[in-house]
């Protein structure tokens, strides 16, 4: 089932959490709401779920207005950030809850409940823990129980609030992949909130980048990473080197860097920011095209990528990532002056 959000606005006191947001989630997609703390992503998710009431705007499910529909009747599955498992119930009882509280007429027979819950626990690979209490489970297991519980009511939409937020790094990795596979299997329209760009890029079909209550960009992971629409998206998705400066007469003067900028040939001078990711910078011992000289301060050779920290003429930090081969070919020493050439600079004019 598709989700459409139209012009949603939500304020808490004087703080505008969600500011005129519109977006569409097509049926069967897995969409990430990505943004820093305070960007309004959780509020938006709770509004879609019906847990929060928007001040303005509409939420449509499959084209049908659900704005006024009570949370109980929206047909959403919600996975809470801290799981919100019922701690006095076993895993089995937690998953069965949504079926057992149905009005008598629509309540499945206990045998049906049993089969269904068992199947779901198998799906999340926890059938062997059915009789345990939440307190006896690990974080990752609780997460999966929360997911099974949300799926038990056969939601038309699955909403997850920071699903991996309180797990440690390794479990997080595993669960991410597992969620991706699970979604491929069950194909229920899903939205999850995260502040971790890596997570958003790895798991989702599409990413909605939010900042200060507004949507900055919506696109596939490749889109938002390769073609960021705003400086915020550029900066939020991965490491960047930022160069402040101006564009004027078809050239951009950005700190130590001066590059052609034909898009801005005829306009008056304007402030601008240039961005280059660390792996988009090449290092050499002599001048090679538009670039600048910098001094190598520190090398972190651990890993497949070698991370180098340099300082330009005005002591500003420049981060470079080189492949091991590139590094071995150059073998730079700390303190050495190197010429830095960006293969690509993204320029945003103010």
């Amino acid at each position, binding site marked *: 089932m598709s989700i459409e959000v139209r012009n949603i606005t939500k304020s*808490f*006191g004087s*703080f505008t*959490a969600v500011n005129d947001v519109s977006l569409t989630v097509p049926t069967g997609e897995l969409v990430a709401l990505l943004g820093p*703390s*305070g*960007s*309004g992503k*959780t*509020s938006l998710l709770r509004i879609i779920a*019906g*847990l*929060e*009431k928007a001040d303005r705007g509409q939420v449509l499910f499959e084209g049908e207005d659900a704005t006024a529909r*009570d*949370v109980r009747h929206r047909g959403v599955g919600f996975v809470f*950030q801290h799981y919100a498992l019922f701690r006095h119930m076993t895993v089995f009882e937690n998953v069965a809850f949504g079926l057992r509280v149905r009005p008598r007429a629509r309540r499945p027979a206990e045998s049906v409940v049993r089969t269904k819950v068992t199947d779901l626990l198998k799906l999340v690979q926890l059938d062997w823990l059915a009789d345990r209490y939440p307190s006896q489970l690990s974080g990752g297991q609780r997460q999966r129980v929360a997911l099974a519980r949300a799926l038990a009511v056969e939601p038309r939409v699955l909403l997850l609030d920071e699903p991996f937020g309180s797990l440690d790094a390794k479990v997080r990795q595993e669960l991410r992949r597992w969620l991706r596979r699970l979604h491929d299997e069950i194909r229920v329209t899903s939205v999850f909130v995260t502040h971790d760009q890596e997570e958003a890029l790895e798991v989702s079909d599409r990413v909605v980048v939010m900042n200060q209550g507004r949507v900055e960009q919506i696109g596939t992971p490749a889109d938002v990473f390769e073609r960021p629409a705003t400086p915020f998206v550029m900066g939020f998705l991965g490491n960047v080197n930022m160069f402040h400066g101006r564009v004027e007469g078809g050239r951009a003067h950005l700190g130590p860097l001066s590059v052609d900028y034909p898009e801005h040939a005829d306009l008056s001078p304007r402030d601008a920011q240039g961005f280059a990711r660390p792996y988009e910078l090449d290092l050499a011992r002599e001048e090679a095209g538009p670039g600048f000289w910098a001094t190598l301060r520190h090398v972190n050779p651990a890993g497949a990528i070698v991370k180098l920290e340099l300082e330009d003429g005005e002591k500003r930090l420049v981060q470079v990532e080189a492949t091991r081969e590139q590094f071995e070919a150059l073998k730079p020493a700390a303190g050495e002056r190197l010429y830095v050439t960006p293969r690509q600079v993204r320029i945003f004019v103010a």
Partner: protein
Amino acid sequence: MPVPDRFRKTHSVLPGFGLALGVSVLSLSLIVLLPLSTLFWKSSGLGWSGFWQAVSAPRVVASYKLTFGAALAAAIVNGVFGFIVTWVLVRYRFPGRRLVDALVDFPFALPTAVAGITLTTLYAPNGWLGEPLARLGVKAAFTPLGVTIALTFIGLPFVVRTLQPVLESLDPEVEEAAASLGASRLQTIARVVLPALFPAWLTGVALAFARALGEYGSVVFIAGNMPMKTEITPLLIITKLEQYDYAGATAIAVVTLVASFSMLLAINRLQTWSARLGAAE
């Protein structure tokens, strides 16, 4: 999360707010607020000078002095011994500790009338404790000392129960840090532990004091109830009521009430302070 929690519940999806608030406000109004408001209705009938006369008569003033003095003395005794008891209960292990811990609430649970007659019997000149005291020349029952003993009894749990959770949650690392920086045990306690406990301790003492101000059942038997000497304020209120001097009784009640509510307000402030100290850690 970014959105402060206090904003979260404004448009809650949870049901029953109207019903719950309605039931609360209605019962609060009927059972507590309406009856209490009669005090002000009745005492306003006296007029200012009548009110002043009622609350400043020598016999009344003597009862304030006794009630205040004994309550304060009891609160101080509890402040000292309550602290030691809490320290021992939280920090040391000895057989029967849990039993002793449970027993601390005994004065809370024991009906005050029972406490009253028991303490009176114990401290009467021929009682288990009164007799040895009498031989030392100390009269306990039917004197201000007896009042203080009764108020100490009922105030004890307040200090211990307020202090206990704070002492329990005091991170031992803080003391270890002090020790690692070269502080002696005494210095650590004086400069690190006591300041951290002080707001809670003061709150407990204030609670014991506030409770003692209005206490009746446990005191009335042991006090002796001699006008000008061993008559506590709550008893004076009852005496006036029994003489159908409702206005006079009300006036004294208003004074007592204002005193207790000011105490509670101060305690409220203390608790905020205490909570802020706790949060700062």
